């Protein structure tokens, strides 16, 4: 009989103790993960830049100039969702793990769920 795997979760504590704009970096086994609160949304990404392995989640969480159709136009957006690597400024959107470079390059993201007013980080099924 097949064993049903249930996703491993980490209980990060009460929602109201996780301030808007706060980030927490935690280690689970050999993996370091950053959890971010943006307004009422929570996002978690692996703390590892695919470029040269820097601790991505220690970089600024900001916005970026979104892709535009014509030169000379700037459209600031994704405010609060763009994680910029502290080493070489590579950018990733914490909602999707994707960059804005039209490539397949991405960082690993993890679901975050609120259960009974507590923040749970959902890890890969064991």
């Amino acid at each position: 009989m097949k064993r049903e795997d249930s996703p491993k979760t980490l209980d990060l504590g009460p929602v109201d103790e996780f301030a808007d704009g706060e980030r927490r970096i935690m280690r689970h086994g050999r993996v370091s993960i950053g959890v971010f609160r943006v307004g009422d949304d929570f996002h978690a990404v692996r703390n590892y830049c695919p470029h040269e392995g820097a601790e991505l989640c220690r970089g600024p969480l900001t916005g970026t100039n979104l892709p535009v159709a014509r030169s000379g136009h700037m459209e600031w957006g994704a405010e609060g969702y763009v994680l910029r690597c502290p080493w070489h400024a590579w950018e990733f959107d914490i909602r999707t793990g994707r960059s804005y470079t039209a490539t397949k390059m991405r960082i690993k993201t993890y679901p975050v769920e609120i259960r009974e007013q507590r923040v749970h980080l959902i890890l890969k099924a064991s």
Partner: protein
Amino acid sequence: MTLIDSDFHVTWSDNAALAEYLPKAWQQRFLRGSGHSQSGLPVTQPFYNPAAQGQPGGWSEPEAAVTWMENHQVEKAILHAYQAPAVSNFGDADYPSLLAEAFNQWLIDHWLDGRTELLGTMTVATQDPVRAGKEIRKRGSHPQIVQVALSAGTLQPYGKLGFRPIFEAAAEMGLPVVLHAGTEGVAVSNPPSSHGWPRNLLEYRVCPATNFIAHLTSLITEGLFSDLPDLRLVGLEVGGVLPLITYLWRFDKNYKALRSECPWVRELPSAVVKRHVRLGTGSAAIGEEHLYFELLESFGADEMLLWSSNQPRWDAVEPESDPHLKERTGWQVEKVGRENAAALYGMTSAL
């Protein structure tokens, strides 16, 4: 396989032939000052002038050129007058515009009309970009004018806003813009090395790749290929594809970090280059042949190379001995020899 030769040089046999195409008011100036810019600086560097060494700078009569083509299974040839784009390196504006227009009409009358196997490269004077744009729309509408040559040597990189009317007109007319090495450092352009003047011809001859790459970087980051999806750029004798490969590795890497500075560049620079840029095979430094082709194949260079003989100049090649045209596994020789050029110059239906 019949070939398309994307770098086939022509020249006027004497200055009087070209002078006829100038208004009277300017003829004497041309005949007196020919070979020199109006700032008194040489247009053709003495150390780089094949004519001074008794060697041809280009075919001077169509019959000889066409005979060579027939003998080498070259079905179409793209004509270049090596020295024509140097008008953009004069310190003047009206005169070089007139001279470019005279050259273009001479090319049409003397080479193109009645010879459909010959296709022409017009030129414009970049000192007056608006007038250059008008000239591209006017003479660029001739069915055998297939591209616009700009000087490789400039005072600014080509992505700068001032050059826009030229690139807009070229894209509108479906004419690729071509940069042919050789005008770097000419007259009032910047020195051919980014650090100044070379001491000798050897140094000069290895500089064009960096110069071309500087223009290309500017065109990409300033958004010319984003704004003008139909724009195509051709590099001839600019060091071949090899320098581009490692340059694009670095460009792609830095783009990932700094793309927010130019958000109109919406994909990797290497993807932009593969779609918008074509390079002639002339002046490629092959070195170790198996390694050279391994690197080119890894880059997919057979999708972007244009076979170029550079005839009849002293460093020309013949198709029978050109390694780019040898059959080899994983190498699309028909694309290099013909199809890439046919697609670029809109000749697919004619072949």
